[in-house]
């Protein structure tokens, strides 16, 4: 074994660091994220995220589907807020088509989207607290999430992969009892948030683990493309719902929670405040819900009612054509961005004038927010990495797509 003798011996004086693999199966990386940590003792010197383990080629698959067939694919991108993804995609295609959606559909979309934000934030809160060591919050959060999943099941027949928003409106008008269920949930929810806050916001151990940990300055947040609560916790007051409204958001009154410190604690406070604000928006949408149709009057794009198909020849023909050959979309390109629970979710859809999209690109907020993670963690302890990952609320399905 002569060749081994040429290997230089490790020199304790200069080789101070080692490489540690965190993930891809680590429970607090929230999915299959692999982090390469270069550590000096307990301290992280450098960090590099390694992603792609969940890559399923959704963008490529979308190019082989009709426009309406892409909607169920978008559910699978971010499985914690499928409706937000449906929402962004259908808005993009509607913009390409120049299609106006009736007010009732817009308001129901806003309401469901805000409920989706609540349910996504509940998963974040539960898992984030559990990473820190507060086990019981998880159980409380999932209790309320269960209510929300039942609401989605009522409206779409599915608990998670809803695909309820369609190009041109909604799949169906919500069923009987749906609005009562939403109202009941919205009425009890504020005291439930108080419950979480009682467990966490004044908790000495929780504060010590979160405060002054994983700083991100406003300049770094902008340079690294961070959006959503991650950006707002660094003191930048920007929310697409308020600043570049879509789908009637300009008609709702709500506050945008902003925090100055840019640490994990600030991100926690922002998201918990968003839970309450989302409830406010959903309440306004429920109370002021306009009546009218939930589908646009565009027979070549929107599937006809089942009842009409039994009596009208034309409806049957349109149904047959949409299902078998789709509908053509005028050539062009759009970038539609909405505020997802994690930040700016953008769909870039390019049409070449046929019935299948030429390109669908998803700008996922987690993908950009993840780039801010090394900046937050370098120079800090390994234990803080866990808190930092929880605080940017990443979903790996959305990162790898």
């Amino acid at each position, binding site marked *: 074994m002569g060749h081994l003798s040429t290997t230089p011996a490790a020199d304790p004086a200069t080789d101070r660091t080692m490489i540690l693999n965190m993930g891809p199966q680590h429970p607090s990386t929230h999915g299959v994220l692999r982090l390469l940590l270069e550590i000096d003792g307990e301290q992280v010197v450098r960090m590099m995220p390694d992603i792609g383990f969940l890559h399923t080629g959704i963008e490529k698959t979308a190019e082989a589907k009709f426009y309406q067939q892409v909607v169920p694919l978008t559910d699978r991108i971010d499985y914690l807020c499928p409706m937000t993804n449906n929402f962004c995609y259908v808005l993009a295609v509607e913009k390409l088509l120049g299609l106006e959606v009736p007010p009732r559909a817009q308001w129901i979309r806003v309401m469901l989207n805000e409920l989706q934000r609540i349910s996504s934030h509940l998963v974040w809160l539960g898992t984030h607290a559990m990473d820190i060591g507060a086990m019981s919050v998880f159980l409380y959060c999932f209790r309320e999430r269960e209510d929300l999943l039942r609401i989605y099941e009522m409206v779409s027949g599915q608990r998670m992969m809803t695909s309820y928003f369609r190009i041109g409106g909604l799949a169906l008008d919500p069923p009987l009892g749906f609005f009562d269920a939403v109202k009941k949930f919205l009425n009890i929810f504020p005291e439930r948030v108080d419950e979480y806050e009682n467990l966490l916001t004044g908790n000495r151990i929780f504060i010590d683990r979160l405060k002054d940990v994983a700083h991100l300055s406003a300049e770094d947040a902008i340079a690294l*493309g961070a959006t959503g609560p991650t950006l707002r916790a660094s003191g930048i007051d920007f929310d697409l719902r308020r600043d570049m409204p879509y789908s009637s958001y300009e008609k709702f009154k709500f506050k945008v929670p902003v925090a100055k410190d840019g640490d994990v604690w600030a991100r926690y406070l922002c998201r918990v405040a968003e839970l309450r604000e989302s409830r406010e928006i959903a309440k306004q949408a429920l109370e002021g819900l306009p009546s009218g149709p939930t589908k646009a009057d565009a027979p070549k794009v929107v599937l006809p009612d089942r009842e009409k198909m039994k009596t009208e020849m034309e409806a049957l023909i349109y149904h047959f054509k949409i299902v078998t050959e789709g509908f053509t979309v005028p050539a062009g390109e759009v*970038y539609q*961005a909405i505020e997802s629970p994690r930040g700016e979710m953008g769909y870039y859809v390019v049409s070449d004038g046929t019935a299948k999209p030429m390109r669908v690109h998803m700008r996922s907020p987690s993908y950009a927010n993840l780039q801010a993670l090394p900046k937050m963690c370098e120079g800090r302890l390994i234990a803080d990495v866990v808190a930092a990952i929880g605080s940017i609320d990443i979903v790996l399905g959305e990162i790898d797509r």
Partner: protein
Amino acid sequence: MPLEPPITDLGQLKERPAIAALLAWNQNAVQGAKFDRNELSVYVAREYIRQACEQLQNKGLVDFLSDLTCADYYPREPRFEVAYHLLSMQRKDRVRLKVKLDGDDASVESITALWPAANFFEREVFDLFGIRFLGHPYLRRIMMPEDWEGHPLRRDYPVEGYR
């Protein structure tokens, strides 16, 4: 809101702040523009894209890189169009810069020096389209395995892959 025909005449669009700033800086950099569905696109010459972004950033017309991606218009040449979605949080406005690239020389200057956020986006475009970003600090595959052959999002790459 029925669709209005796109405005593609640069003369009609030259009052727009982003285009005005770019034209004032360098006439040759702007190859064309399009205003379609309330979105402004500016075609920038390949050799000027980094400087064009820098100009817009320095003049305060944009401050945030929302997205960077690409579309393949195969079999047309130049087949690739790299799209830079820039956002101004101050003015609450977006502008899209586009660069056309030939298939046999698909490379463009990296903008990671202006926005570190471009790092992952450019790696993704490199991985899935095979476009090289010159000056990128770590241009490696990000989605596909290291030893993967081909670039899946190219239009001449079959959906079910090569077997």
